[in-house]
């Protein structure tokens, strides 16, 4: 895999806040890399740093192995789409999309401009809008025009910053499909920043999880699920996300801090006693409708019909977790349930740093979720 775009030790401080705190990231040729993290994690600043739109306090940006940290945004062969549309209101759709090609950097001849605009517009299904004024467009149409304007050039990397988050779900889905088909067709390299796990899961080949200006972990979704390095991976991934319980580890046994239940952790191995967070993917928690030896009691706080399945939120002592269940399971709000985390599938995290506590020598087998 060839690395196209690379960030090494990026640092950026705004006022008293470290927006980027030593961020490292490699973007590979031809991939869609999702940059997934909560609001304020540093996603936009990272993309702006790649694009040269924010002066860095420290660190290096490389494109095709060459440092471009000090090059102007124009000199970088990158295209950026930020949230919101930023269309030029006095120009037609055609002229908006053609704008980058007619800029002093490119100065393409008008035949090439026409051809490129038509190609990008065709990809996004907006050929019929080219003569319109941008003021006549719906939100979804404006967003397509904004994306087409970025795609009209064929830069080394596209940087998309939550380009679909302002749209309603149906439109977002349609545009996701179009972006994906375009990516498949053109083999382009894309960095897609989002706080939305489903979008990232739908579009990306790999996911980079970002939190507090640092990359927490990078991998394919199955890799992240099999081997989360940090508690934030559990919080950001999955639908529902990872169940997390605080408690302490005593000689290989996890005891929840409300004192109500405990579970023996094989994977704990030689992990030292002390305060930990136990994480487990909801798929690895077994649910029973009746009391059962080894199972812990909880109450269904609320239910969520999701179409194919339902999710429930279970409260037990001071802890809560969510889990998808079969639609037909007769569990309504207020029902009592009994649960057991599968001991072999538990992960332990340091409560203070959030880092995974790995047992020396034992290591879990990565596996696919069934």
């Amino acid at each position, binding site marked *: 895999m060839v690395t196209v775009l690379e960030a090494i030790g990026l640092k950026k401080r705004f006022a008293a806040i470290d927006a980027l705190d030593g961020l490292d990231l490699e973007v590979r040729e031809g991939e869609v890399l999702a940059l997934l993290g909560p*609001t304020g994690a540093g996603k936009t600043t990272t993309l702006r740093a790649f694009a040269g739109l924010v002066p860095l306090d420290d660190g290096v940006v490389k494109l095709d192995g060459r440092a471009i940290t000090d090059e102007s945004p124009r000199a970088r062969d990158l295209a950026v789409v930020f949230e919101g549309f930023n269309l030029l209101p006095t120009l037609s759709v055609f002229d908006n999309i053609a704008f980058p090609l007619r800029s002093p950097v490119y100065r393409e001849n008008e035949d090439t401009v026409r051809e490129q605009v038509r190609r990008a517009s065709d990809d996004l299904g907006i050929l019929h809008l080219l003569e319109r004024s941008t003021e006549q467009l719906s939100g979804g149409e404006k967003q397509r025009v904004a994306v087409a304007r970025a795609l009209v050039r064929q830069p080394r990397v596209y940087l998309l910053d939550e380009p679909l988050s302002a749209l309603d779900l149906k439109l977002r*889905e349609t545009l996701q499909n179009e972006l994906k*088909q375009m990516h498949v067709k053109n083999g382009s390299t894309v960095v897609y920043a989002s706080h939305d796990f489903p979008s990232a899961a739908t579009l990306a*080949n790999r996911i980079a999880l970002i939190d507090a200006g640092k990359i927490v972990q990078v991998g394919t979704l*199955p890799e992240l*699920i099999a081997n989360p390095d940090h508690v934030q991976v559990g919080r950001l991934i999955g639908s529902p996300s990872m169940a997390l319980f605080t408690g302490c580890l005593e000689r290989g046994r996890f005891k929840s801090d409300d004192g109500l239940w405990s579970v023996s952790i094989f994977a704990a191995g030689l992990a030292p006693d002390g305060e930990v967070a136990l994480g487990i993917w909801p*798929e690895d928690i077994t649910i029973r409708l009746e009391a059962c030896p080894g199972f812990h009691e909880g109450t269904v706080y*609320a239910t969520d019909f999701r179409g194919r399945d339902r999710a429930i939120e279970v409260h037990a002592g001071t802890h809560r977790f969510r889990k998808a269940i079969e639609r037909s399971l007769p569990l309504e709000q207020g029902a009592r349930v009994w649960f057991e985390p599968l001991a072999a599938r538990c992960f332990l995290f340091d409560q203070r740093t959030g880092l995974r506590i790995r047992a020396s020598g034992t290591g879990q087998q990565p596996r696919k979720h069934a």
Partner: protein
Amino acid sequence: MADVELDTLSVRFGDVVAVDEVSLAIGDGDFIVLLGPSGCGKTTTLRCVAGLEQATSGRIRFDGDSVERLSPREREVAMVFQFVSLYPNMSVRENIAFPLRARGERGASVIDKVNRMAKVFDLSSVLDKRPRALPPGTWQKASLARAVVREPKVLLLDEPLSAIDEQFREEMRWELRHIQKELGMTTIHVTHDQREAMSLADRVILMRDGGIVQEGSPTELYDQPEDLFAAHFIGSPGMNLIPATVEGAIVKIDDQTLVLPDRAKDVLRSNKVENVTIGARPHDTLLAAGGESGLSVAVLSVLSNGRENYADFKIGGIPCKGLIADGYALDERASVTFNPSALLLFDGTGRRIGF
């Protein structure tokens, strides 16, 4: 609490029919969601129930009594809008108590009711804080608590979650669902977000062009959409909807024959349908590498969601999604079959054909 009945309710603005003879019966304690795209009449319907809009014709009854002549206040409804305000100079406690004090309640009953709200809405730890110090989700809960503390007959929610950051919206859905069931309050909720509707509702009323397209439990709307609009609107990722031609009882897509259950063939034959649309949810659309049975398609991409692999493919020119087994290599020929018990057929006018 009350049950609510809308009887052939219509609202016209000049020549425009905003609500077109809508009839609905809402049971005491039910959570109803009016769902549809903008302009479908859902908000106008809600405003009629609130008394903020006059119906051109039709009746609205609470517990059997007609309420058209009653002012919004006299109807004893609580309405919460998209942008909710709390009094910034009052604590959360004072905000929640305000509607009670405004109608002259004093003393222990106010304290009891506020404390009950604080417990239901999990606000006990912030009762003495000012609203501005609260995160958005807590703010929203406090304003809901203020709306329901005086125990209105009906709670009306007009897109209350749409102004909230997406990250808090899911949290609020869980809370809203829990609280509504806990209070057992008759609730009518308006949204254009099908995910929200499916998650919250006991019963979903899907609307379009002023009328009701379909009404039923979330399961019914998901499994048995009445027409192509409902099929398209409900579910994410969306249902695969593939146009096909019918010759006798043979259904063809792209010159390939789709194997149908016998009952479906009988219905097609006896109804003399010429064009149909095949409907199948992505999780009922199954792809296999190679494979001799099923429709042959080219797979465009495959992605794992961590549990399963979903393939994007095109059939009859329509982009579709389906489940694909592990170990599929792109460029291989794949064949598609549909789970026969979940397969839907729609006729040329878009109505579902039952079989």
